[in-house]
């Protein structure tokens, strides 16, 4: 194929700029809120740029964002819950994914179907049963409870993704490892996992993100402010804002930015992997 002519390049870039503006616009709107020190309460005037540019609120939020909880506590909770959920989903999910990818056994098809079923279930469906189960186990209001809840949400998707990745690993490689005397676990650990690692990390990222940004269901599993996550704090801020209008919007903007930033960075780093390893496989086979 020849390189595209100038007019086409020009046209392409114009379209891309328009889409770029569409992508940037809301992000910039929130950033402006966060960086404007003149904002007290709700915005009353239109400004494209902050009227009084400062990082003040951004730093204030890092100190004490919501009620009496420290930002460090919120962040710690968020990270514990999200990493824990992603780890459980990946480790326990990987074994299931491998079983479904490599073996043919009785009950495989119904198993796949149930997997699909839980993947398409709205998370709200797990709320009541998990509420009762974790209550019985006595860990409903702990961080561990939240970890389990979010692991359940993320797991079906992780299994789908990893199953496709394991299927893509050439069977011949594993077989030759067997022939050389490696055990099943060794083969899995040294051959299969490294080859499927990019996909596994994508699955982990998605499980992490799901737990990191969830609040509506998690809300029911929190009783003390010390187990709040960032997402829940933001939600609480929005709620109070709507009820009273007292919380400055710039706080909300700052917290939202701070929350998004780490994920955005991870996404940008993993961009290439994301591009190549988003596999879903065929649910039918």
């Amino acid at each position, binding site marked *: 194929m020849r390189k595209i002519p100038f007019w086409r390049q020009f046209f392409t870039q114009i379209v891309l700029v328009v889409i770029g503006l569409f992508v940037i616009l809301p992000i910039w709107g929130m950033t402006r809120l966060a960086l404007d020190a003149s904002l007290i309460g709700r915005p009353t005037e239109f400004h494209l740029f902050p009227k009084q540019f400062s990082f003040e609120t951004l730093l204030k939020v890092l100190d004490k964002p919501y009620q009496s909880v420290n930002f460090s506590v919120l962040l710690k909770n968020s990270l514990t819950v999200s990493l824990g959920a992603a780890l459980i989903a990946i480790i326990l999910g990987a074994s299931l994914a491998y079983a479904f990818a490599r073996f043919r056994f009785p009950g495989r098809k119904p198993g796949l179907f149930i997997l699909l079923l839980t993947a398409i279930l709205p998370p709200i469906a797990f709320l009541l049963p998990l509420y009762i189960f974790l209550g019985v186990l006595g860990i409903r209001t702990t961080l561990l409870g939240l970890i389990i809840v979010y692991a359940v949400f993320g797991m079906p998707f992780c299994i789908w993704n990893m199953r496709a990745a394991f299927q893509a690993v050439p069977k011949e490689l594993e077989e030759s490892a067997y022939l050389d005397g490696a055990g099943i676990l060794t083969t899995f650990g040294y051959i299969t996992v490294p080859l499927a690692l990019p996909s596994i990390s994508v699955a982990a990222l998605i499980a992490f993100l799901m737990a990191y940004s969830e*609040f509506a269901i998690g809300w029911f599993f929190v009783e003390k402010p010390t187990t709040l996550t960032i997402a829940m704090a933001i939600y609480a801020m929005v709620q109070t804002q709507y009820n009273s209008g007292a919380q400055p919007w710039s706080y909300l903007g700052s917290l939202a930015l701070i929350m998004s930033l780490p994920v955005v960075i991870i996404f940008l780093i993993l961009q290439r992997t994301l591009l190549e390893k988003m596999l879903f496989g065929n649910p039918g086979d």
Partner: protein
Amino acid sequence: MKIPVRYGRIIKILLIIIVIAIAWALRWRAVTVLPVDYDEDDYLRAAQQYAALIRSGDWTGFTQTNYRPEHPPLAKIIFGVSILSAPEAPLIPDRSSSADPDQTLPKNLLRDARASSAVLGSLEVLLLALVNPLAGLFLAIHTFTIKYTSQVMLEAVPAFTSLAAILCYVRANKRKTRSGNLRGMNTWFILSAVFLGLTAASKYIYCVAGVAILIDWLIWSMEHKNLKRFFLQAFLWGLIAFLIFLLFDPYLWPSPIERLRSSVSFNAAYSTGTHVQEVGYPIWQPLTWLSMSVPWSGNRPAFVVMVDTFITLLAVFGVTRLWKKERLYGIWLGVAMVFLLLWPTKWPQYILTLTAPLSLAAVYGLSALVVEPIKGWLSRRKEKTNRDKKSNLANLRRVLPWLIPGSLFFITMALIPLLFEFGTSLTNLSSASIRDGLHGGILRAIWQGLTGQIEVSQITGRSNQVEFTGLNAFPYLINYISGSGLLFFNIMWTLLSVFLSTGLGLAVALLLWQKGTRFGRIWQALFILPWAIPEYIGALMWFNIFSPEVGWLALAVKRFGPNFPFSFFSGWESSTSFWLIVLLIPAVWYGFPFLMLAASAGLKMIPSDVFDAAAIDGADGWHTLRFITWPLLAPLVIPAIIVRSIFAFNQFYLFRAFFVFDNGTMANLSYEIFYNGQYAISATINMATVLILIGFVVLLNRWSKASEGVNYA
């Protein structure tokens, strides 16, 4: 086994008779049970006037009488004839058309006029049953069709005549193909024009059937290179229809142009007038009507079966087949649908313009969804032998170590909860009985209920004990979510948002994939951002722009005045149609990066020599995209579309951020109901969601398998 032609015919006749009997029985029940609706008093008054004219033999009076002159008089005259045998009653007073239904109409007259409607309604079913008995059955049980062909409404006559016009035209065409060439107009053609004229003389909007005929005719003529003849004949055909219309609209005779103009312009003005505006139906309201059964009913249920939702659903899946096999009906359905969407007046009775082709489409849908899969399954079942069962069992021993750790967690934390959720939907667990529920009340209720020890209880529980309700909540809930328009909104939302984000995602991927596009990496990194931002935050960012009063847009309009670009969006919160657009913007914003990534990944896997070959063969850009890129890309993108659709169907945070509580998805409704303490009902909604999504995934999967036939070879 082959049934001889003769018996086949007898069976068909028997089926038609059964269908007619059902249609009549259902309509007669509606005639006797339905409460008086809007407009019935108006048309009954018109009927009384015509009856008086006939009794006194004042035939010239017909040219001066047409109560509610915006609608042509034929249907009203027929009502007049139908009440001749009943004893006279004082003339019903003249009231405004938006006045509340008058429940004190003279019983005899009402019943006779309604019965004439029902007769014509049953005849319409008969006509459709002649085409296909099952389609006739669908039309016979369609509650909206029953309702408006069992009341003193104008629908029954034009619904019947428009279907008749279509059938005559089909019949005429059959002859045409049989004799090889077209030898001028035959009787059936003329009959179809006559029926179209009668349709126009009853209610204008049913003439969409005539438009459909013309389109089909035009396509046929173009295919047979016979355009010249088409114009001549279509003109003649239209002329006949118009003359018949004039003949049966005596009110027009004294001053045809003036009266015709005023009646047409009334309808146009009415559609944009205050009465229609006040009701505030969104653009897609006709689709909402189609997605539900009649939600209004009197004290006694007027309808025995309420399955309109399923008929529409089947029709959706049958439309492509209908188009392929019986194009004319497909065109009819399409033209009527487009008209209903564009026409500002959205009264429910208007959908009767298309319930006949809809029923036919539903038949094809039934064959696509149910009959063919079962046939395929049966034939595959025969082929399958019990080979390699043994090795499977040996495999089980090897696979167990892999299965056990994951399964333990998965079964306890996902599968059992799922079953538990299903169990809960069989009870009436609520915040009042949660204490009992936590102490084993749910299991007790289910056990006792399933073993028949206790009676089935009411759906919404207020007692402090969990009670068994069985599957009772399901039909109630299906009626609720379809009747409130939620189900339809949810499906439309999914389709629109996935369609738009797929379109944008594909477009961006293609733009970036062109050889030599500058800054590709940077653009891609930028476009990936929305996906990296948590959905709720992204939704808040958009709410920050759109929120009334304090949003960016509202502030900008306040400062720069209404000439500001996009200012037409302000005030979106008061219009349902605008709501949808404003909410779709963040949905697309959030959804397209995912599809862009999937499409980019897919594009990289297509070997470039395919395109070289296409270029050598002289394919232009569009053809390359349509016939080469998309078929190769589809199997790779469709899984991503499925995943996106599931997310869109369960979309939750977006509606939450926009503070839209009464018009979100089923997930939002389920959450709200859960929050208000009706846990069992919330569970029932979730189960319904799962059922719908399973159907959806199975269908999409079939579709993607169908497109997999294309290889890279």
